[in-house]
């Protein structure tokens, strides 16, 4: 007995120092005793840990519903956005992917792992584990399909060509576009938003893992806003130029307005997209060093707003109506003709739902400057009547173009929501 106990104590102390790789190396020589000790110990630890997630129940945005969440959901603090290319050749594989994704996404938005720990320790854990014990953090996962899923290089890949909506085509080339292949396009997209960056990353990571062999990452970009802790009043977030961004946005609670501007309606195009929405993504590099040496008046003229209050030039409050007619004594408009706010507004007939996030990817190795900017995400019912005309105006004469460069671009049709038992994409694939 005593001897046995000594051995056991020894084996569990060894356990802590042994890496998985070491276990493999010694397994052949040392026999299985050490192996059991090592894996058993780890297994017990992780089982205890995973139970902790069950106690957290707040901060949940329902995954199932008429629309996908993450569109008219109050914008969370963080995003992890991924564009994917499908490598599968057949539609059934695609259907399986969306079924598996739906199931996993529903679990993760409730703060649950994508799969329970298997009792077989010779298998890798189903969930990657880094979100264990964390709050669901208002996680939303939004899936979309790009034009190239329907037709790529002239090929009708999955027999879906006839189902492609007219609106779902690559965006036109805008003046000054400096698009890079590595940040452009995609057959599918996943937008994971959460109030915690690790929760958002965990979601995309697990979905990409589930997709292995069926789809691969094409490009990915995390983004952030100020956190709710830092801004308890929930004011309009500021972009990396220091200006409030997103002041004019449809009211997320006004269903009539959303049906007009955000949700695809019956008769707009193929029925499968009804209650879905078009997502336009632009990865916009911001030359922050150049901006920082621009004087304040120039900065404010560029945006057409005051930096401090966010009010339109000539007004005093952020949400005051734009006065596009007022002129100064010298005959120039108070809100300059080439200002961002004037051009974005146009005649006011086009609106989009914006959910933009800042990004900073460390240093641009070519220039030694920050690689920072805006991951511009916007949703709309009809891109040809909303984002495209707005961007045409901006690309032609927006003063902001001196300080920015559009490096990435993509368009996706975000599928309608689904109910429990169904799956995202069902309307398209059936």
């Amino acid at each position, binding site marked *: 007995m005593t001897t046995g106990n000594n051995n*056991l104590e020894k084996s569990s102390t060894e356990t802590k120092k042994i890496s998985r790789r070491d*276990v*493999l*190396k010694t397994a*052949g*020589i040392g026999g*299985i005793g050490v192996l059991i000790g090592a894996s058993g110990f780890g*297994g017990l630890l992780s089982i205890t840990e995973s139970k902790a997630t069950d106690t957290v129940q707040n901060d949940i945005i329902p995954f199932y519903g008429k629309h996908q969440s993450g569109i008219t959901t109050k914008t969370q603090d963080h995003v992890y956005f991924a564009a994917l290319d499908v490598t599968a050749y057949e539609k059934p594989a695609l259907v399986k992917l969306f079924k598996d994704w739906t199931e996993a996404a529903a679990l993760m938005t409730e703060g649950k792992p994508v799969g329970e720990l298997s009792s077989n320790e*010779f298998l890798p854990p189903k969930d990657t584990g880094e979100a264990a014990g964390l709050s669901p953090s208002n996680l939303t996962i939004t899936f979309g399909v790009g034009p190239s899923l329907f037709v790529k290089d002239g090929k009708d890949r999955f027999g879906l060509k006839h189902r492609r909506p007219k609106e779902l085509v690559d965006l036109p080339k805008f003046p000054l576009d400096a698009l890079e292949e590595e940040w452009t396009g995609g057959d599918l997209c996943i937008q994971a938003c959460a109030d915690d960056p690790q929760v958002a990353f965990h979601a995309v990571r697990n979905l990409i893992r589930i997709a292995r*062999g069926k789809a691969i990452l094409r490009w990915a970009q995390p983004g952030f806003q100020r956190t709710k802790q830092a801004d308890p009043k929930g004011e309009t977030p500021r972009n990396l130029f220091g200006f409030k961004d997103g002041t004019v946005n449809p009211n997320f609670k006004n269903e009539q307005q959303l049906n007009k501007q955000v949700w695809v309606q019956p008769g707009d195009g193929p029925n499968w997209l009804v209650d879905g929405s078009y997502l336009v993504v632009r990865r916009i590099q911001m030359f922050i060093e150049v901006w920082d040496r621009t004087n304040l008046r120039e900065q404010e003229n560029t945006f057409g707003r005051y930096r401090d209050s966010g009010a339109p030039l000539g007004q005093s409050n952020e949400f005051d109506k734009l006065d596009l007619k007022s002129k100064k004594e010298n005959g120039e408009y108070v809100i300059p003709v080439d200002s961002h706010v004037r051009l974005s507004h146009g005649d006011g007939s086009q609106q989009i739902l914006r959910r933009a996030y800042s990004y900073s990817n460390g240093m641009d190795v070519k220039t030694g400057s920050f690689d920072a900017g805006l991951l511009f995400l916007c949703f709309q019912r009809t891109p040809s009547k909303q984002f495209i005309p707005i961007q045409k105006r901006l690309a032609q004469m927006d003063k902001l173009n001196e300080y920015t460069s559009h490096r990435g671009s993509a368009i996706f049709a975000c599928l309608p929501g689904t109910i429990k038992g169904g799956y995202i994409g069902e309307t398209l694939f059936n």
Partner: protein
Amino acid sequence: MKFLKISSILLISSSLLFGCSNSDKGAAPAKDQAKETTASSQDSFKEVTDEYREYAIGEIEEFVKATDAFTTAVKHGDIEKAKQLYAPARMHYERAEPIAEVFGDLDPKIDARAGDVSEAEWGGYHRIEKGLWEDNTTKGYEQYADQLMKDVNLLRAKVDTVEVTPDLLITGAVDLLNEVSTSKVTGEEDRYSHTDLYDFAANVEGAEKIYQLLNPALQKKDAELSKEIQTRFANVYSLLEKHKNGDGYKVYTDLSKEEVKALSQAIDALAEPLSQIGIVTEAS
């Protein structure tokens, strides 16, 4: 065929094990049970582990012969011949890596790359690789050739003592692909000769051998998974095929960034389902 529910028994025995550190009671049963698990699980896979053992020893034997030819060329100062023999010789080692690596002391002597060990200790294949490709000489490398031959002979002698267990196979298959993902894909393995694709292919072949040996058991458990793994192996091979150059492979630096990425993602796509091969240990 009898399959043992190895995992649940492992879990039971290990929870006893864990609890036992503070208590005398139950220690002995836990230990007995562990032994029992070892014996039975190894019995049910005995044919497979025996066959793998034979395969691995066969590769190591070929490795001895190829290393002999390689080191002889180095010692004779025949640079061109040594260069020709370098990559194909290493493939035998890379195929049998799960076994070869068991010997933690020999692996660095044979296969360490610059920086893995101190400059004074650094010998083996990659040291000579640097001489052949970077310094373009064999002069001064004869001692490394001699030492390498000794170490490889020692490896051959020691391999007979390896106990091949089912878990060594299960972990080994994925580990071979992890080797590809972490060092071959990056071009760090053969940084002077850029013959990384030989090692790449050999690792994949080694993993495939294990898959093939476990496949009859896997078929019974999950035929769909087996088919999926097979398709993904075929996909990796078809990508490798594009980079063939006669009997061998192109130098790695000739591959475009996109081609490297495609290889890397194909390995990920294969390794993910292959990592499920542990289900063969479950009871039917």
